[in-house]
């Protein structure tokens, strides 16, 4: 029988209140709550910190099985906990690919064992991510992992017929296909956003239209077959327009944006530092502003990290040879505070919506993305929003250090994370 009293926390940024956790559940929310210390209850003085529902990431690369040199389920979930997450969706592009019930169950089990954060495996849409043959979507759904989100992320399901069939097929178990929108022919040899900077740097261009054309096709396909589709890591102003249009039609389209696309632009590539190499690439200032606005008005449903760990040697090289991707779990909330909250675009209730309620809903994840109220599972994140500090990758819980924010001052720091009533992070450190 464990009890934790969080005293004086601003729930979703509101007036300070007390929150009582008993075992795995929130049992009371109110003012002047008390606990008897004789019963061994723990009191946490929140001192006006922000209390959010545990964050949910729809897009995480945990790299296990296959690339344990960059991340494992254990280190990845530790990083997630430090970042305030209580659930992550583990992408399917592992070695072997998570395209069978066996692999997704393995990842799911590793998540259970880690204990830092719930791991919901994502299943591949096609066998081996090759875009040719549907993977056993039903079997993955029916497995212990209970897969509901399917994605070939890293690759685009570019064959229109395969995409149509996948969209239709997953309706049987309320699944969703999360599309990595990248027209492959338009992005052959692509190294960065195609535009003014790529023209100067002589790096192969990744045009916005390669993303937008796939999104346009897929929202039309989803409408045609009456399915829901989720768009991964939206990165352009044009993509926002298409999603906004699809939503205005009442179509079942959801979309995510990464923290880095809310902050960084392709101007950074002028340094040729591969830490800025990511797919989809960093875009322009105008795109960044459109993405922020779309996240604020709900056109973009959620923030997803696309946490993509890579070993040092894959970034400590020339641009062309470097791997694409950035770690993001441990900085996501700070970047969102900086770009969305401190800029006045979103309040904390909005952050809870975009980083917990909606992603949990899109993933049909039970027990996560719930309100902070009595009777709900105690998945909670306590944030010191007044904190300011430089990002130091040496302190990351992730096994990889490929952050674009090294040395950058960002606001906010997660001091406590609770997974079903158990503290996974205490005073900013892993419990």
């Amino acid at each position, binding site marked *: 029988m464990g009890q934790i009293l969080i005293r004086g926390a601003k729930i979703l940024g509101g007036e300070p209140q007390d929150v009582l956790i008993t075992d795995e559940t929130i049992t009371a929310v109110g003012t002047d709550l008390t606990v008897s210390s004789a019963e061994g209850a723990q009191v946490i003085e929140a001192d006006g910190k922000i209390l959010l529902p545990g964050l949910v990431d729809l897009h995480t690369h945990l790299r296990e099985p296959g690339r344990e040199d960059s991340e494992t389920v254990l280190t990845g979930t530790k990083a997630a906990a430090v970042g305030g997450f209580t659930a992550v969706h583990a992408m399917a592009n592992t070695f072997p690919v998570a395209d069978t019930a066996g692999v997704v169950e393995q990842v799911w089990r590793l998540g259970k064992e880690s204990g830092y954060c719930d791991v919901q495996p994502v299943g591949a849409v096609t066998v081996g991510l090759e875009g040719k043959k549907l993977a056993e979507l039903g079997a993955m759904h029916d497995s212990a992992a209970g897969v509901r989100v399917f994605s070939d992320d890293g690759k685009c399901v570019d064959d229109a017929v395969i995409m149509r069939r996948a969209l239709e097929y997953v309706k049987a178990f309320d699944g969703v296909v999360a599309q990595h929108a990248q027209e492959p022919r338009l992005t052959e040899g692509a190294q960065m956003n195609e535009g003014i900077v790529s023209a100067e740097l*002589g790096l192969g261009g990744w045009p916005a239209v390669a993303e937008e054309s796939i999104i346009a096709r897929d929202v039309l396909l989803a409408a045609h077959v009456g399915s829901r589709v989720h768009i991964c890591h939206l990165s352009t102003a044009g993509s926002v327009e298409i999603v906004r249009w699809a939503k205005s039609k009442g179509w079942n389209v959801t979309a995510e944006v990464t923290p880095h696309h809310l902050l960084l632009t392709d101007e950074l590539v002028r340094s040729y530092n591969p830490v800025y190499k990511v797919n989809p690439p960093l875009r322009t200032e105008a795109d960044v502003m459109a993405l922020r606005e779309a996240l604020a008005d709900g056109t973009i449903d959620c923030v997803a990290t696309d946490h993509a760990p890579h070993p040092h040697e894959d970034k*400590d090289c020339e641009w062309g*040879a470097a791997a694409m991707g950035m770690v993001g779990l441990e900085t996501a909330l700070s970047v969102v505070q900086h770009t969305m909250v401190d800029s006045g675009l979103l309040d904390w209730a909005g952050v809870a919506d975009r980083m917990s309620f909606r992603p949990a809903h899109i993933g049909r994840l039970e027990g996560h993305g719930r309100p902070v109220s009595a009777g709900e599972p105690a998945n909670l994140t306590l944030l010191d929003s007044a904190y300011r500090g430089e990002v130091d990758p040496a302190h990351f819980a992730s096994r990889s250090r490929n952050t674009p924010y090294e040395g950058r001052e960002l606001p906010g720091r997660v001091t406590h994370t609770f997974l079903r009533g158990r503290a996974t992070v205490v005073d900013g450190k892993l419990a």
Partner: protein
Amino acid sequence: MKRHLISAADLTRDDAVLILDTAEEMARVADRPIKKLPTLRGRTVVNLFFEDSTRTRISFEAAAKRLSADVINFSAKGSSVSKGESLKDTALTLEAMGADAVVIRHHDSGAPHRLATSGWIGGSVVNAGDGTHEHPTQALLDAFTMRRRLVGVDAGLGHDLAGRRITIVGDILHSRVARSNVHLLHTLGAEVTLVAPPTLVPIGVERWPCEVSYDLDAVLAKSDAVMMLRVQRERMNAAFFPTEREYARRYGLNGDRMARMPEHAIVMHPGPMNRGMEITAEVADSPRCTAVEQVANGVSIRMAVLYLLLGGNEPAVTAGNGTSTRTEESK
């Protein structure tokens, strides 16, 4: 001057003119019985080539040797280690060997920039062509050739290319030569027009300090120099243009077109030429074509660059970034 030469954009006008003037003195060494200067004795120059380019490598090699530097040729092509490991590990090896300058040719845009800023090595980095990014010494030798031909060998000393109209024709999209030339020629006051089919002009070119035209015939009469770029035959399969024949017809330089250029105007080509594609044999072999001269000028320019980077305890100082180097000497 900066310590490295990565981009033509690194050069101020004074830097560029100093390099051209210095190259003019270096060119005179080539006419002497002993074509050698003791200046870089004891300095080590490494030619680090990740991409085959015999022409550029021997040009740098000749330049370094004429200045008495020790030259180490390091061809990293075909190395079994992955590309990334090989650049860093190779750099660390070169550093351990005490390279004073690394001349690097690499298939990836930005590799020289990375080498210069990574902290892997301490010496100067000279970009000898990186991916589709830049090839600054090619632009310098092109500007040197233009100044000699259009302004004059002696008359050109101390001068830039103000008001000269330079047309660059061909695969701008993939051309490091074009990128470096646009920067440098703009710095030197020339007016640059790029001519190519729209498929071979990069998105974003509107920010470059130059004009763009799709019509070669429209600009020929207004050109003091026409630079023809090599068109890789493999571009044909990527639908950049329908056929070689159509490309040659619309964007190739033939005798008729050359006749429409002003009398003093020259034809340039960085080589190797695709005769019959971007340039006909008649034009390539005409006295107005400076292709061979450009090769000879390349050695002078590279001597000048190596001297100005390595000839002192720091690179030459120009009016743009400090005091004059011309001080009275001890006698």
